């Protein structure tokens, strides 16, 4: 019983070490491009949502015309910059 337990424990330890160390032996050294692209797409979605909220605030009367145009242009510029980097 003790021997089986010890073997199980050792196996668990070896599996753990392999799980952690294996990417160092076989992985890629650079951050994959797709991951960066996903992040940019997420940022774009958030900015689009902010424009929608801004439009609603403007319609309800919670924000002046001048501020609305200012903020919307700012958000649109941010999206444009993002789009330049999205493939």
């Amino acid at each position: 019983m003790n021997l089986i337990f010890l073997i199980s424990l050792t196996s668990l330890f070896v599996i753990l070490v392999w799980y952690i160390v294996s990417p160092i032996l076989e992985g890629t050294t650079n951050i994959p491009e797709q991951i960066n692209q996903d992040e940019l797409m997420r940022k774009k979605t958030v900015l689009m949502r902010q424009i929608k909220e801004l439009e609603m605030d403007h319609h309800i009367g919670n924000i002046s015309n001048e501020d609305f145009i200012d903020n919307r242009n700012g958000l649109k510029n941010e999206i444009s910059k993002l789009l330049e980097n999205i493939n």
Partner: protein
Amino acid sequence: MIPVLGSISLSLALGLSAISIFLFSVFLKNADYRFFIAGWRGAVAISALSILATFLLLNELLISNFDISYVAHYTSIETPTFYKITALWAGQSGSLLFWLFILSVYTLIVLFQYKNSYTRLMPWVIIVLVIVQAFFLVLVNVIENPFSPTNADFVVVNGNGLNPLLQNLTMAIHPPTLYLGYVGFTIPFAFAIAALITKDTGSVWIRSIRRWTLIAWLFQSAGIILGGWWAYQELGWGGYWAWDPVENASFMPWLTGTAFLHSIIIQEKKGMLKTWNMILIMITFTLCIFGTFLTRSGVMSSVHSFAVSNLGPVFLGFIAIILLVGTYLVIDRASILKSEKRIESFTSRESGFLFNNVIFVVICFAVFWGTIFPVLSEAVQGEKITVGAPFFNQVNVPIGLLLLLFTGIGPLLAWRRTSKEALIRNFTIPILFGIAVFIACFFLGIRETTLISFPLTGFVAAAILIEFHRGTQSRSKRFNEPFFTALKTLISRNRSRYGGYIVHLGIVFMFIGFSGHAFDSELEFAMKTGEIKEFDGYKFELVSITPTERPNHIAWIAGLNIWDQENQLVTRLFPEKRVYFHKDPNPDKRQPHSELDIHSTLVKDIYTIFSGVDMEQQIAYLKIMINPLVWWVWFGGYVLIFGTMIALWPVKEH
């Protein structure tokens, strides 16, 4: 074997936390992505091992392995299976392991959520999470190991059993809910530290943590409400909040967390309050650790003092490290934390948010001061000066009412500045409604604080409903939708905002309930079976006293008929006097307990406590309390939770 495996899992997890941090350090130095993946996997393994250890302890509790000290201390053969599970967080080491378990689950979610969306913040986010895990791993490995063997030179055939006060369904849910809140704030804290270290203090980290903050806040709120419910149902003093140190410990991070939830809106929309947000989330997390410390250190006397230990210095050391590192980072990054814009007008939504934030922090400071004052006074003067509920009420009631006022004012203000016309247009109806409630209250004979609180709840409720009306009307006009369709779409498309307003409505309902406390009344008396006692417009008839024996206690049940003035039966209540561990030959181990019974309505609660019994004379010693409007506290709680869930629900992107 299983206890050994549990201990080894915890030791391995502790060792892996050092390795994981090392792998991330290599990644940060060389930008070699392989080490990021290895570090990430290390973090997964730490969480998995911690979760495994928790399940192993749970297994030992369920099979009543009294060879483990923790199992012998907090369960017995007679303990019902459900309470054997809840015993996991009943004691010191178990609850620390449970903290680690929740953090590990949260960490796993974060790790997989961001697995395919690397940002510059992620390595640091994971490092911070692993450091917090490592702190708790040190506690459960070195100081309070839940798998420690029972220290006895004989076979332990039965355990002590669970504290009767904890053998209650609400108390089974309340601690894990609160823990989910406490631990949840670790995630926004980790993102904040990562943002400071990487100097990426824009809105990316704010967007990443909004949902996490809401989740933590939801659980913290639900935990506090459940705690109040438990106190009301179980402790038998007729109230739900006593400003007990441990209650305060859960309330303080809730206050700063609420302030944070509001002020991140300003940062997201206006690029303001960046430093303030960093400070708020650090204070919130520190208060969460402080709360765990208060509950677990035994430094304060409290109804929650289920554990007394020497964990204090370790917790205080960790808190000091968090504060030192946090303060250094905020000071060092001061130049990049400057606001992009300034508040231009007193009558702007930004200033409304700022006032509300200041009030939250002031209340938090008052609660903090009152909570630690007994410890400070003992340290300085050698005499423990207790600060009771009157101090907290005197300080916090007026500030709380001011906060309620700003809950109503905030949504009525426009961003940047509100024109005179808009002020008149937006404020007229809520003010008129508030005045109408004031007049009604005055003629009903209501005086003092409640003469302010009820009109204020009227003002705020009207302000919130107007905000819903304005939004719906605007949508109805723009898209030519019928009113109710527009209302439904308005909420579903803007869940964060309108969910927030529903939460405010919940707070209004809760304030109505709090105000009812001013009209509480109570009477304590002894009566024989068949006797009738009149009190506060009701007749209380003691019909019977019935003894009964259950698996883990003996009980005497008082049968009470309650009649109104027209002799109509209002309700029948059955409060109980119980004695737990009644079979124990040692009388000192027997624990008396009063299980009360409540008749609850929208207007008032009839609260009955069976405090003593004389079976020979057939006499019951009873305490009756009439508590008006308490129902609204719990209803407000439901509304608050419902509103938060709406705010949390993901919006479909079109």
